[in-house]
């Protein structure tokens, strides 16, 4: 165990933690929900093909949908039950756009459908391990939801030497990773060991913020006999959970803008992902549930719950005693980077680690004022950007100007909005600007494609016209030849007759 005390990176903020609400509450199992809603479209737009029909019986852990590539993460049924419907249903996306969803009515039986034989992971090769992680449908459980197998494969190819495990959990309110580290430290450590072997890394570092002493103790204890796993204590500072900032805090190295951390030989994974990897490789079990913190001033009894993927948010609220009178807004994830949930019937997906019901004081829907040029956002920005300048450009729709000020490097962490005394919705401006830039880029790609296609069409039409012309000429020539031959024959006949 080693403690790092100097300021770990530039910027950052100390938001009020609110973690005391759920810090002490042991992870509980949510009763099996009556219906499960599995969205068949991922956040990045990738579509999954359902492998079951309406009326089919599905078992817990059965593969029910898969995509065309490794970037499309396979879905497994979290319950035993029957597929009752496949239709458009609300998803956890903040837009509230409905996506094709597999609806499963669950039965009382809660046992695993098949007898999944435990395996000895030591007998698996590196590629087999990564393939099994892909097949288990494991994604980064820290929030981004990137397929873990794809990340591990890339790390193996690039010869990553250090696996950095993110136990930062810097978002206020959330304690699911903290509780997971305390209650399942040995499983987390076992998962880390397996991942280290899968990518051929030399060592693993587990970084935990210093406001989680019990997790630090539990992990240090679990990892004490393992030489190449060490626990690092990092100061509590938001956004410590960001990959770049965690690397900077633990190793002192800076990931260059636009680069990936594997360029430095470091791969970052979340603690919950490590545990899911352990379950997949040791017990042959797909990712069908995850730990979620349900908290906020609008929740009667905040809790940490093990939730089957696809459970509607309303079931979680029910399990936590419902909403208080003052509850105003539902948020998926933490209060800093979380997204508004469009409806209480929204199902949770693999990347949601928190469910917050915020009350009036927590929502902070104050009127915003003009920028004071106080510079607090500049000192808070962990990426060293000037948020007020970027917002000024984006406000007048000058998105290129915002890009010149480094919009592409913005993490959308919300530290600037948090400190702004004028309550300017800075991070909202950046989300909007980023969306506009993406839309413009895809439109430009489409225009280029259209141009290419018209050129190709023109060439094709020219070719066809030329072929037609050639055919016509050939026919005409043949006709002429025939006529000439006929003439010659006639002349010969005449001559013969004349003789």
């Amino acid at each position, binding site marked *: 165990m080693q403690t790092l005390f100097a300021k770990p990176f530039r910027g950052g903020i100390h938001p009020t933690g609110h973690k005391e609400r759920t810090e002490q509450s042991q992870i509980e199992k949510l009763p099996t929900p009556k219906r499960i809603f599995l969205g068949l*479209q991922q*956040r990045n737009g990738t579509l999954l093909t359902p492998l079951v029909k309406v009326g089919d019986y599905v078992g817990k852990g059965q593969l029910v949908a898969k995509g065309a590539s490794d970037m499309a993460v396979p879905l497994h049924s979290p319950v035993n039950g029957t597929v009752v419907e496949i239709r458009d249903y609300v998803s956890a996306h903040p837009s509230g*756009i409905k996506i094709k969803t597999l609806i499963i009515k669950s039965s009382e039986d809660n046992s695993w459908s098949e007898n999944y034989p435990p395996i000895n992971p030591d007998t698996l090769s590196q590629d087999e391990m990564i393939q099994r992680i892909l097949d288990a449908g494991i994604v980064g459980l820290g929030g981004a939801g990137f397929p873990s197998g794809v990340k591990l494969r890339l790390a193996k190819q690039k010869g990553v030497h250090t696996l950095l495990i993110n136990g930062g959990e810097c978002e206020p309110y959330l304690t699911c990773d903290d509780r997971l580290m305390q209650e399942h430290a040995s499983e987390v450590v076992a998962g880390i060991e397996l991942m280290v072997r899968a990518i051929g890394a030399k060592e693993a570092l587990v970084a935990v913020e210093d406001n989680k002493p019990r997790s630090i103790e539990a992990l240090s204890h679990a990892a004490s006999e393992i030489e190449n796993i060490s626990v690092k204590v990092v100061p509590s500072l938001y956004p410590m959970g960001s990959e770049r900032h965690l690397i900077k805090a633990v190793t002192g190295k800076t990931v260059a803008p636009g680069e990936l951390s594997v360029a430095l030989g470091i791969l970052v994974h979340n603690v919950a992902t490590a545990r899911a990897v352990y379950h997949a490789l040791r017990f042959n079990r797909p990712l069908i549930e995850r730990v979620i913190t349900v908290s906020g001033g609008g929740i009667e009894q905040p809790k940490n719950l093990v939730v089957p993927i696809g459970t509607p948010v309303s079931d979680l609220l029910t399990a936590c005693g419902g909403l208080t009178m003052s509850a105003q807004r539902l948020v998926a994830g933490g209060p800093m980077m979380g997204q508004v949930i469009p409806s209480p019937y929204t199902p949770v997906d693999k990347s949601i680690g928190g469910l917050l019901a915020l009350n009036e004081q927590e929502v902070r829907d104050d009127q915003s004022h003009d*920028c004071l040029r106080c510079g607090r956002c500049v000192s808070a920005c962990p990426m060293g950007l000037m948020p007020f300048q970027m917002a000024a450009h984006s*406000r007048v729709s000058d998105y290129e100007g915002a890009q010149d000020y480094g919009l592409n490097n913005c993490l959308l962490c919300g530290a600037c909005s948090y400190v702004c005394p004028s309550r300017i919705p800075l991070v909202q401006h950046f989300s909007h600007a980023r969306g506009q830039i993406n839309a413009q880029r895809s439109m430009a790609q489409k*225009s280029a494609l*259209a141009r290419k296609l*018209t*050129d190709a069409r023109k060439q094709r039409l020219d070719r066809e016209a030329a072929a037609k012309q050639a055919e016509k000429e050939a026919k005409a020539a043949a006709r002429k030849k025939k006529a000439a031959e006929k003439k010659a024959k006639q002349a010969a006949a005449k001559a013969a007759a004349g003789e």
Partner: protein
Amino acid sequence: MQMIISVFVFLLLGGSLGCILGWAQKALKVEGDSRVDDLEAMLPGGQCGQCGEAGCRQAAEKMVKGELAPNCCPPGGKALAGSMAAFLGVELSDEGEDIPVRAFINEDECSGCGRCFKACPFDAIVGASRQMHTVMSSVCTGCRLCEKACSQGCLEMVPVLDQINTWQWPKPQVA
């Protein structure tokens, strides 16, 4: 003698002036506005005529003269309008922004006449003659040329709805 000198002088004068004129024609040539060529290269080249001009070249000429706004090209969309406005150094007005549309063929009613296929400048429609035709929505620019060509009335323009991966955060209303 004088006559010979004057003939010589005029010959010299004529020759040198001719040389200067010849050089000037090459060196000081005024080319057609090169911006027209650049703009034409930027336009989709579908010759769809939605801007009200005969084709993309004519539209480019009018845009350079300032008679046509850079956002006149529906197939090019916002991105093209933005880049052309930046190229010409003009402001883009926000008004007149249409909802993007795509062609859609009601396949049950398609007779397979192939007129829409011939009308599409982007090869976004596929199908053989006397067979059902369909639109590849990822390629369709919504230029509406096929709409007029369809003899069955089974081809309509439908608005493009936001998908999870195309939806954008709206601009914050305050500040």
